[in-house]
């Protein structure tokens, strides 16, 4: 069994994402139309666009969370590094390598410690010393260690919304992911908590590729290196954030970022 686990770890996921001709249907509804994109490693890439444009749907393709939705069908090629993630890859292994933070903080109803240790325990790590180390490292990574180190045994549901969301980031980090997906992680938070999470993202990109879906265009300009604009299931424009916002190539992008619709 031990050998198996080692073998499993040998499936090396890279840190860049490459998608060719992605299409996605929910039943009869076509939610993504022929999307191709190359997401560079260890950068922050933002997906922007009006509600219902498919940006969150697209994000969830990267860790196959769409598999949980009934009637969802996906075609096209999705690669992380060299691995075809819709090929023979084990879904759970993929998800351990591609972490995700959700729109609403969703800490499990257990202690702070158990929340962070959930991922490593899933991997089969049982030794206390090892877990302690991972928990501390992850909480430090999410810059929460100082505020939480004395209340590791308390329920995570007693934390504030902002703390809960950063705990969810720490929880994702504990699985040691190569890529972190963030689905509107600050939309339910106040400006101060939002600021903390943005700082955190900039810190994390030294090690990890981050893809963030956001409704907040200022947020994209503040933290994203690359920005992709989606509309009605299509990728309209993609490139350097500064360029997308200062000199958009497409009229629709310009209309959106100048606030004419959305």
């Amino acid at each position, binding site marked *: *069994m031990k050998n198996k686990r080692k073998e499993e770890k040998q499936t090396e996921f890279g840190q860049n994402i490459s998608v060719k001709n992605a299409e996605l249907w929910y039943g009869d509804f076509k939610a993504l139309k022929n999307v191709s994109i190359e997401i560079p490693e260890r950068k922050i890439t933002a997906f922007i666009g009006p509600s219902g444009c498919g940006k969150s749907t697209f994000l969830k393709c990267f860790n196959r969370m769409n598999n949980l939705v*009934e009637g969802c069908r996906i075609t096209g090629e999705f690669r992380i590094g060299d691995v075809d993630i819709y090929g023979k890859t084990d879904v*759970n292994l993929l998800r351990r390598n591609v972490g995700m933070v959700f729109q*609403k903080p969703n800490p*499990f109803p257990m202690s702070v410690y158990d929340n962070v240790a*959930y991922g490593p325990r899933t991997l089969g790590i049982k030794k206390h010393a090892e877990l302690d180390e991972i928990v501390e490292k992850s909480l430090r990574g999410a810059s929460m260690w100082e505020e939480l180190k004395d209340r590791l045994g308390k*329920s995570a549901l*007693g*934390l504030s919304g902002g703390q809960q969301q950063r705990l969810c980031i720490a929880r*994702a980090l504990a699985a040691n992911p190569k890529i972190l997906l963030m689905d509107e992680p600050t939309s339910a938070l106040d400006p101060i908590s939002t600021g903390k999470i943005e700082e955190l993202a900039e810190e994390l990109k030294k090690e990890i590729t981050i893809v963030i879906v956001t409704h907040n265009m200022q947020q994209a300009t503040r933290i994203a290196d690359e920005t992709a604009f989606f509309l009605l299931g299509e990728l309209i424009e993609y490139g350097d954030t500064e360029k997308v916002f200062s000199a958009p190539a497409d009229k629709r992008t310009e209309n959106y970022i100048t606030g004419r619709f959305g």
Partner: protein
Amino acid sequence: MERSDVKEKFYKILFAFTAIICIIAVIAIFVFLIARSIPAFGKIGFFEFVFGKDWYPDYRDTYDGELSGSYGVFKMIVGTLAATCGSIIVGGVLGVFTAVFISKFCHKRLKKVFDVVINLLAGVPSVIFGFFGMKVLLPMLGVFADNGSGSGVLAVSLVLGLMILPTVVSLSKTSIDAVPDSYYEGARALGATHEQAVFGTVVPAAKSGITASIILGIGRSIGETMAVIMVAGNAVNYPTGLFRSFRVLTANVVMEMGYAGEVQLGALIATGVVLLIFIFFVNVLLGLVTNKKKKDRASIKRKNAFLSELAHKIKIEKIGRIFSYIAAGVAAAGLVSIIAFVCIKGIPNLSAKLLFGKFETLSTISIFPSIVATLITIVISLLIAIPVGVFTAIFLNEYTKKGSKLVKAIRSAIDVLSGIPSIVYALFGMVTFVVFFGNKTSILAGSCTVAVMLLPTVVKSTEESLKSVSDSLREGSYALGAGKVRTIFKVVLPSALPGIMSAIILSMGRVVAESAPFMYTMGSTLSPMPNSVLDSGTTLAVALYKLAGEGRYVDQAYATAFVLLVIVLALNVLAQVLSNKLDKKLKGRKK
């Protein structure tokens, strides 16, 4: 194959397997009822059975020979209808107005007291209501009766009415409380008084919930056995007067199933089928009421406009307010007097000898064997019902596709099953488990019978608590690379635990409180300590029924009632405390 894959498959098969057991139990009951009643219907004739006025069964009748007895249950059908109507007039009306009072007219502190007390009373065994009726109501009513006996429709209505009162109150109150405050505020903003706002806006908005609570009360009244037997008189008559002895369908089954002959037993099972048809109609009614919301708002509004005009003319809100106060007073008085009766009569009769003495002969009576038998029954029945029920719920909620027709069918079968009167389970247990475990009543047979009876409730309440676990938690777990089994055991089940725990404790309460299913599956004569689970025994509730029925041991009956009450109330308190505590532990201390 990966080890994790093997684990996923193993649990999936385990959950599916328990679900199948559960479904088989459901099907078995229906098959049993149909297969065993068809010969009786055939021999007697369906219409002769349902509309026949004479019930003179002959235990020597067989399916091969000529019938010498007559088997018509029409008088009992009328009896059941009369008892149900009476109990709804008493319990339904009192219950709804009491709910309005608690929710809208009473002081905050009193409200809390009412809440706790009503919840506790919902678990009081029906035998205790029957016992109260027998010892307190019957002598009182007897004064007004020509024949000096108080038993009859009036006594049954009062006893059943009191019995369903806590259920009606707590469900009605929940639906009144659930009406958004904005309705009330809107009405007040238009210049309505508090009473006008309550009776003109809030109560009509809670109408479907209130109706549902009354219909559930009807279901309980139809299915109740022991409390009715103790005060109805049980002669096969039409209930032509308030004090005329009459018999209901459930009573018919329990009174004769112990010594029934071939055709007679068939006829009793057929009586169970008639009961089931009643319950089925009640369920359909309930479904209509709870689905009505979506349909045709306009016509409801028109009717409401008419009603409110009428209400305006007769100043219904003033009357309603007065009524609420009276109803709450009467309900409180009735329920408190039952508790007081049991305590006052029971405590002085408690003795160490009765509680823990060795049972030798009837002169040195002790309920210790019954206490032990009750405990054993709780353990065995929960060991069967809880794993099967919880796993079935997991299968239905976590593994099946939403909207699947098969699952819908299973759910509605379970719904029907949860409404079946316990006496039907008794019949089922008598011809299956009793026969299977050596053709004699035993603790094991009784426990299995009641386990089947508990299954639907356990499945339903577990499913409810699984449903209330937010999908975002499941997603969070999957996103960390956890498989389905790990997600279920580490995230979903712990979150659903408060709900599941209270379902378990309420199941224990039901085992303690039920008596009808045990009489002919487990034993009905007080006896010495059982040596094994294959011996027969009596639970406390059955012991109370027996002691109450025999004039010589009334003091012991009082004491038994007190012990029973204490156990049931303790279980209820435990359920509330535990689920609050677990809830708090999960939610954490708020800053």
